[in-house]
């Protein structure tokens, strides 16, 4: 009836009253609530779950945790699909649909596995060595390689799920909810400290769910877990987070946690986000991240059915699943005996216990013998058989030094292998915190040495091997962390622990085979990226001996698992190779690669959170935005602002609309929403002196009511911003900046005021948001304004060009500036923002009889370019001086100092060879040059050609009846009259160099 033929009759922590149906590669299976996808597949006897990355070899489930290298799964469909999820971390739910990866056409018959037969042609560094030439073919190769070496598939469209972020402060953050972490939480929590405990799994208790042979205070370990969790849950200041991975440990005890909220639910309630990113600032951190078992590196150690011994124990004890019916155990330590004994106790036949140690002894070994398990000491597995699942192994006697095997091979039938090569402390978080590691001979791995942040490592991530040590270290660290944050409490005595004692270990980093390494089967080190022991040897021979070089040359540790099961084995093998060649070289000298966040793969959506779409960046709109939309304007982004770009009439193209808008501004009256210009209010007795220092021209004698154009430089002499600043009264100025530069200019002024001239009495405030601005221009604009503005004399002599007046416009209190960016008679009317729309509507209504025409930013650009007015950021790019812009007139020769003055005298700045601003007129007046196009003196048959400049602005000018352009060209004005070439794809445009001004050359029109 049930297909769960590997499910044990009783035991386990699954909920047998809740059977669940799921699908894997199209096939229906059943499991139970509490299963992972991995345990449910194993319960159904399914080991084969994937094909390897490079050789497409059949692979099975190797672990029971987040270190899983093989069982990578594609989950879900459409835009909700997730690639590369580990089957060992996917909680089973009803209706789950999962698929294997990197196979075609199917998992059992995969065409790509031909790579395995051709393995001699795929050594380490294969791609580097093979696809070198011809260079132009690299893109073609890459396409093929990417198809062949596949992981899962990314969704094509937008992620439909919602993600959130939250920020927390706590006294003690504990990473890991195993025995050590729970003990630390208990000790810290009892003091009243604010504690957050985080665990990536679904159950707190860690190894105690698997190691049922342990007792705490005479009772099963899980009783202690339940009591501890219940006590913690009752503490108001303690937060327990499950399904949450500590992904990153950054400076000053800042950690990120990724909480998976709805992934385990079939259908998620709408109010819940899929995942939540926690950003934690912790006063103290206790790391209790545990340890990961190492695989053994023997010939063809990758067949489905071969798994870590601790994982096999977890499947037995927590999930009531046996990995096989005849299980062979291969170990170099005592811990795997616990797995053998657990299986034996459940009636699973142990095909043999192969121990690399010559004379294993101790209670566990004795217990195995007493149970009648066939122990083979001093032997090694030299070969494995089985196409899609292991079916037998061959064992041989090891030589005394462990470097080879002797005697004859003996075949043992089995359908699963449980292997154990010792334990690697999970030091990722510690290392990310900046802490220094040291090599420990006790565990043959790196353990925490020097902390640099307020952090303590406890338990097996600190190299502790026994449960009692884990509990002791946890309790001690918990109380010490709480005390360090100001809480009081007594040290809790460690409970009495019953656990099997463990003795020595024999590290054989490469288990010898029947033939020399690489000649009979593959000794896999990194299962996910198909890196073998022979590849590590090859890398060493070819000179890639630094661990960082080894990693990049062989791709060892570069998979989605980041080498959690493989790094120590790889660097130990490299250490052995170097030890044979280099005196004194050993594992500890090889070092380790950098541990980088995130600890496990994280959804980018969680990092983006709500900051997507419209919330990615604020969109700023003007008070008149509503009117522009109603008028059918097209918009463009200018910095964060949305500006009306042009106002097309039905059927009009961009060019037609802009031509019409420009003509109206020159011949009648045009109106522009100029609200977005940066506006800064500058006040104080030293305001004029301050401006005198930050602008290149003179400001002290500007009369109240008058305005002046100013250019601001960086201290290196390069143009930074420009704008018109008006003196409202003796001690008050109204500065305008470019739209995009407003915030930067404000920061710039504050920096100089606070850090260089703190003695100046001057205050600076942004008022960009306080004013709405309508700019009107054209011959009729004065008559129009006069209708709405009874209290300002608009006559030329009463209100001259470059001056400011206060009055009312359409009944609204207003500041009116007579300045011009179009070259026409022009007024900029500033009113409080809340009246902006009313002002605009009044202007449009009164302007109707003059055929008032709203114009957008595109027409504004054309109008100013016809006059040769620059735009900072278009004609300039941070490498352009006032002289480069032919604007020497604005640089004071008399001022002793201003920001950027000395730099303008530098040798390279006064060089005659600099690119300077000129105009360009194309030979064909209808040809509009593309902005950014490169300019050459002489066109060569093919690149490279000496480029002497580039086009900065280019438009069709209706006022000139032809195209116009501005450009920065070497030699600048000295080239006026020359014809230069602009080579483009498929054609070359020729243009004559002119002055960078094209219309109203005597500047009469601004007087109206």
């Amino acid at each position, binding site marked *: 009836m049930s297909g769960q033929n590997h499910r044990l009759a009783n035991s386990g922590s699954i909920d047998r009253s809740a059977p669940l149906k799921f699908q894997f590669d199209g096939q229906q299976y059943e499991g139970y609530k509490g299963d992972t996808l991995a345990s449910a597949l194993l319960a159904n006897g399914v080991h084969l779950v994937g094909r390897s990355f490079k050789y497409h070899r059949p692979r099975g489930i190797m672990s029971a945790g987040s270190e899983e290298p093989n069982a990578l799964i594609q989950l879900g469909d459409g835009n909700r699909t997730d690639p590369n999820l580990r089957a060992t971390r996917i909680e089973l739910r009803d209706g789950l649909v999962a698929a294997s990866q990197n196979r075609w056409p199917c998992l059992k018959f995969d065409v790509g596995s031909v790579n395995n037969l051709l393995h001699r042609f795929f050594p380490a560094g294969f791609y580097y060595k093979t696809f070198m030439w011809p260079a132009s073919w690299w893109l073609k190769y890459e396409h093929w390689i990417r198809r062949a070496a596949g992981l899962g598939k990314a969704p094509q469209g937008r992620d439909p799920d919602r993600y959130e972020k939250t920020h927390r402060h706590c006294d003690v953050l504990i990473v890991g909810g195993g025995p050590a972490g729970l003990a630390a939480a208990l000790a810290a929590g009892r003091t009243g400290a604010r504690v957050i405990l985080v665990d990536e799994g679904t159950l707190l208790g860690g190894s105690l769910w698997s190691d049922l042979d342990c007792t705490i205070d005479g009772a099963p370990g899980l009783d202690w877990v339940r009591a501890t969790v219940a006590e913690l849950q009752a503490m108001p200041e303690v937060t327990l987070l499950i399904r949450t991975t500590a992904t990153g440990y950054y*400076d000053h005890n800042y950690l990120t946690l990724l909480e998976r909220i709805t992934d385990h639910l079939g259908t998620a309630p709408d109010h819940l986000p899929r995942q939540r990113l926690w950003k934690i600032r912790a006063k103290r951190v206790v790391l209790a991240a545990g340890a990961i078992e190492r695989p053994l590196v023997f010939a063809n150690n990758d067949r489905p059915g071969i798994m870590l011994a601790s994982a096999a124990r977890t499947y037995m004890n927590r999930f009531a699943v046996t990995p096989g019916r005849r299980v062979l155990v291969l170990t170099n330590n005592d811990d795997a005996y616990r797995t053998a004994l657990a299986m034996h106790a459940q009636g699973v036949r142990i095909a043999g216990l192969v121990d690399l140690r010559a004379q294993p002894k101790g209670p566990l070994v004795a217990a195995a013998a007493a149970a009648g398990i066939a122990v083979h000491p001093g032997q090694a597995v030299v070969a494995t058989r089985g196409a899609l699942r292991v079916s037998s192994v061959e064992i041989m006697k090891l030589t005394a030094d462990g470097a080879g095997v002797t005697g004859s091979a003996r075949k043992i039938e089995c359908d699963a292998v449980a292997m154990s090569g010792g334990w690697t402390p999970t030091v990722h978080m510690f290392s990310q915190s900046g802490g220094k590691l040291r090599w420990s001979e006790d565990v043959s791995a790196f353990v925490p040495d020097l902390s640099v942040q307020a952090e303590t490592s406890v338990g097996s991530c600190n190299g502790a091997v026994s449960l009692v040590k884990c509990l002791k270290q946890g309790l001690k660290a918990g109380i010490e962390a709480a005390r360090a944050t100001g809480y009081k409490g007594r040290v809790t005595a460690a409970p009495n622990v019953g656990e099997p004692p463990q003795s020595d270990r024999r590290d054989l980093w490469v288990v010898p085979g029947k033939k020399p390494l690489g000649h009979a089967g593959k000794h896999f080190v990194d299962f996910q990226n198909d890196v073998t022991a022979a590849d590590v040897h090859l890398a060493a021979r070819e000179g890639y001996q630094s661990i960082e070089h080894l990693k990049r040359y062989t791709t060892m540790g570069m998979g989605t698992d980041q080498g959690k099961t493989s790094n120590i084995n790889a660097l130990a093998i490299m250490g052995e190779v170097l030890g044979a060649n280099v005196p004194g070289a050993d594992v500890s000298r090889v070092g380790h690669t950098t541990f980088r966040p995130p600890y496990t793969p994280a959804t980018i959506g969680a990092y983006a959170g709500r900051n997507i779409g419209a919330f990615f960046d604020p969109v700023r709109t003007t008070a008149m935005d509503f009117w522009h939309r109603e008028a059918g304007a097209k918009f463009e982004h200018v910095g964060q602002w949305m500006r009306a770009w042009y106002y097309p009439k039905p059927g009009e193209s961009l060019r037609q609309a802009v031509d019409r808008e420009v003509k109206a501004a020159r011949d009648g009256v045009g109106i522009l929403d100029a609200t977005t210009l940066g506006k800064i209010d500058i006040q104080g007795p030293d305001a004029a002196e301050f401006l005198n220092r930050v602008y290149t021209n003179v400001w002290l004698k500007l009369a109240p009511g008058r305005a002046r154009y100013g250019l601001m430089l960086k201290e290196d002499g390069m143009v930074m911003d420009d704008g018109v600043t008006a003196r409202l009264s003796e001690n008050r100025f109204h500065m305008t900046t470019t739209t995009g530069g407003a915030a930067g200019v404000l920061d710039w002024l504050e920096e100089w005021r*606070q*850090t260089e001239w703190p003695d100046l009495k001057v205050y600076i405030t942004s008022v960009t948001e306080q004013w709405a601005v309508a700019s009107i221009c054209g011959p009729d604009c004065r008559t129009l304004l006069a209708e709405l503005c009874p209290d300002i004399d608009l006559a030329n002599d009463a209100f001259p060009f470059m001056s400011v007046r206060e009055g009312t416009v359409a009944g609204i209190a207003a500041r009116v500036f007579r300045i011009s960016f179009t070259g026409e008679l022009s007024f900029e009317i500033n009113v409080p923002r809340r009246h902006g729309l009313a002002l605009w509507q009044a202007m449009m209504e009164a302007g109707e009889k003059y055929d008032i025409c709203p114009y957008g930013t595109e027409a504004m650009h054309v109008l100013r370019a016809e006059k040769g007015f620059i735009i900072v950021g278009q004609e300039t790019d941070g490498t352009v001086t006032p002289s480069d812009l032919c604007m020497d007139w604005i640089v004071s020769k008399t001022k002793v100092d201003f920001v950027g003055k000395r730099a303008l005298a530098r040798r390279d700045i006064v060089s005659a060879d600099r690119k300077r601003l000129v105009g360009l007129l194309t030979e064909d007046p209808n040809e509009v040059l593309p902005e950014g196009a490169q300019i050459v003196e002489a066109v060569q048959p093919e690149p490279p050609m000496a480029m002497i400049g580039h086009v900065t602005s280019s438009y069709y000018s209706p006022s000139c009846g032809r195209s116009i352009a501005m450009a920065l060209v070497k030699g600048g004005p000295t080239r006026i009259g020359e014809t230069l070439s602009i080579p483009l794809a498929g054609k070359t445009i020729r243009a004559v160099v002119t002055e960078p001004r094209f219309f109203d050359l005597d500047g009469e029109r601004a007087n109206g």
Partner: protein
Amino acid sequence: MLLIDCPWCGPRDDEEFHYGGEAHILRPRDAAALSDEAFADYLFMQQNPKGPHLERWSHNHGCRRWFNMLRNTATNEILEIYPMGEKPKTEAGQAAYAANWRRETAAEKNALSGEGS
């Protein structure tokens, strides 16, 4: 992600702050008297040490005030925070100040000329 103790607002996340480069770079008083090379020491050259570094920060998204900070660039440990216009008071800060090659440059001497120090 640094936790910076703003002298005006208290400890805040470094997202709120803006880094302002090396501190105590004095602006020359008579820059015209400096050679291009000497002026470049002021304009372009930065200390960039591995270890204690005197630097400027502004609490851009807070009180908008500038202040000085002594930070170990290797560990990101913040050793001292002190106001603009003042010199460091800690031993490490004073050592970092004195060890800076800038103290001997023509640009710095130019900046100090006329200050009577």
